[in-house]
């Protein structure tokens, strides 16, 4: 294998595969990137056996073939090289040479035939249930951004450690996530035709973190999200990201969505967000309880942490209900407001101090956030 590639192009491609490469793997080859040169393109591949990424890179291939090398080390070397064209070349058995101007590096390579499949194993009947949807990268990125934070980082709750994907009869795509204490739901137009063919799927957190990275700062590119049996594949331009779906059933979330939407308070996003942020300073990792006291057209938000101190913030609100005092994990409030757009008017629907609250932006009823209270009294 031998190819020539511009530094900036290789650096961009290597950056995109870094997140997938296992940092502490029991299999040494998983810390490597697979570099394949064929005809006009060079393809970079990496996998941790759960998610895989394939990135096409603009290059001039002089000799077809493949090599592997330590992904992180190669990225660090390329980053430090001057912005010039560089040459990647297999150099005898088990070596790859990187050269640019007067710089020359020889790095260890595994036999590329030993490299595991980039796309997680696709079963035999997988082809049958292949479905896909095309939508703007910006929209898909937004959907991930607004659900991923509410999924569970706790490995012991596997079916919650990802985002649940569902096609709606309206043709919209729905994403749902929860950590057992709060739940985020977002729906966006996707023009899905064969709704019934869509399987229920849970996309893993790690895969979505990479997807978010891929879609960030996206202008108007089209992305394609496909499900083949146990695998989801996201294609955008020259990148293909695949991930193994999480096994298990997502809990029946419909039952926790408050049906009664009678009593609610409304307030501007920024005002409430900055108040809670300030109050959270006087809480500890293990006690993020924030008290909301709603009386007439006023909401008093407060914290009280023994050995640390207490704080109070007063907000003017539109109160469309009675008086109520309720506790929430303040972190759960700031996290959702952080992913919502500036300038929104927030409606918080509350029934009583032990029932789930529903948070929505008045301008976007297709996003809902359901949050269980905390007993802090």
């Amino acid at each position, binding site marked *: 294998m031998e190819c020539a590639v511009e530094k900036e192009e290789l650096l961009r491609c290597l950056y995109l595969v870094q997140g997938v490469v296992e940092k502490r793997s029991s299999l040494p080859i998983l810390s490597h990137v697979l570099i394949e040169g064929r005809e006009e393109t060079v393809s970079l591949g990496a996998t941790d056996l759960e998610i895989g990424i394939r990135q096409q890179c603009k290059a001039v291939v002089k000799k077809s073939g493949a090599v592997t090398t330590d992904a992180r080390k190669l990225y660090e070397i390329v980053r430090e090289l001057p912005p010039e064209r560089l040459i990647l070349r297999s150099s005898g058995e088990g070596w790859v040479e990187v050269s640019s101007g007067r710089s020359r590096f020889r790095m260890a390579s595994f036999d590329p035939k030993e490299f595991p499949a980039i796309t997680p194993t696709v079963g035999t009947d997988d082809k049958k249930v292949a479905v896909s949807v095309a939508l703007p990268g910006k929209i898909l990125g937004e959907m991930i951004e607004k659900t991923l934070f509410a999924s569970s980082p706790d490995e012991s709750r596997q079916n919650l450690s990802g985002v649940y994907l569902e096609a709606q009869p309206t043709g919209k795509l729905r994403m749902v996530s929860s950590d*057992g*204490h709060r739940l985020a739901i977002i729906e966006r137009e996707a023009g899905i035709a064969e709704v019934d063919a869509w399987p229920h799927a849970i996309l893993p957190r790690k895969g979505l973190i990479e997807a978010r990275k891929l879609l960030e700062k996206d202008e108007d590119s089209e992305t394609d999200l496909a499900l083949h049996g146990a695998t989801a594949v996201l294609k955008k331009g020259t990148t293909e990201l695949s991930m193994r779906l999480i096994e298990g059933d997502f809990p029946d979330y419909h039952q926790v969505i408050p049906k009664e939407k009678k009593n609610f308070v409304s307030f501007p996003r920024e005002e409430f967000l900055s108040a809670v942020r300030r109050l959270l300073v006087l809480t500890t990792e*293990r*006690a993020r309880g924030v008290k909301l006291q709603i009386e007439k057209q006023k909401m008093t938000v407060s914290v009280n942490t023994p050995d640390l101190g207490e704080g109070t913030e007063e907000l003017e609100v539109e109160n469309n209900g009675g008086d109520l005092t309720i506790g929430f994990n303040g972190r759960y409030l700031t996290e959702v407001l952080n992913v919502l757009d500036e300038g929104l008017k927030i409606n918080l629907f509350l029934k009583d101090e*032990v029932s789930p609250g529903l948070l929505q932006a008045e301008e976007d009823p297709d996003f809902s956030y359901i949050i269980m209270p905390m007993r802090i009294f």
Partner: protein
Amino acid sequence: MQRRIIHLDMDAFYAAIEQRDFPELRGKPVIVGGNSQRGVVATASYEARPYGVRSAMPMMQALKLCPQAIVVPPRRDHYLAVSRQIFAILRSFTPLIEPVSLDEAFLDVTASKQLFGTARDIAQRIKARIHSETQLTASAGIAANKFVAKIASDMRKPDGLVEIPAQEILAFIHPLPVTKIWGVGRVTAQTLHGMGVQTIGDLARFSRDALVSRFGVHGDQLYRLSHGIDERAVDPNLEVKSLGEEETFEHDLTQDRDVHPVLLHQAQTVAQRLRGRHLVGWTITVKIKLAERLGEGRFRLYTRSHTLPSPTNDAQAIYRAALVLYDAVPRRQLGVRLAGVYASGLEPEGKNAQLDLFVSAPQQTDKRRQLGHVLDQLASRYGEGIVRLGATRSMRPARSQDPGSVRKEDMHDPVARDKKER
């Protein structure tokens, strides 16, 4: 103002309960503990002690010293129930109680004088009530601090009551061996012996500076204790830092499917003990000892911890976390010799309680907790294991009889025993 601290220690607690419940054991050397290759002595009755049988001694060794001893598998839940009875008595005298274990506690009765009389009066009344309500005896030590009170309670066991007046503290502690001091273990003792220190009095002849330069921060503590100074408060909140359950297997377990039910059982026990103390834990730890010898009788030990997003005393949540941690332990196929589940980062239940979403109604959170408490009551009445999750049933053949793990079904004659108990 001078403090009055009582250290109360039940006499041969587990063994005494067995002798109380089974009259045929009275007057005989009784050892409570796991009667297996790897069993350990939990408690020995006073009849077994002259033979040299001590707590934490391997059972094989204990039986060599005292072959006629009757070995009784422990009934932890039963002991816990008796312990609760005893702590209820203590609480009627002062809220300032620092539990050390099931059968041991410190009480600060300085402020109780107006109500109940002197510390000696209180200690006598506590001992009398314990005896009349449980037919068990306790030994008490009274002094101006915890250190001296603890040594005093040990002076005239069983059924002792020793009070050390402030002016006699030094005369009392100085002739005692230096190993009586908390924190002086084998290693420190060896160093001290090398310095010519045998008794606490020998230690008191060293200056603070000399001890600090030799032992660091610990040296300051040695200096203070050797002069009978101990300012540590009786802290009711110091109750427990962690709760756990572990088991050494009679045969190493090489299959995950044999270990999983053990972890589930341990998770249930830990959850039950947490609920019994109205606590929840943030961090779950799994301890796995592999059958990989490292020499000097040591084995490869892995401990893995995980902090949950919210604290729990729910068996399912503890088990789920334990399972993930266990699955991350490498080379389990070598055989698992010991498995344990612990909860730490403990705090009172209900404080900052985050409610769960996926239960059909919010009050279900309480129902689940109530269910836990109902199960606990059933267990303390009819024995642990009376009600359990389906998946744990199949575990029994894989289990051994080790301290802390034996349930009533494992007893020699379960039917006869059950009848007697009711």
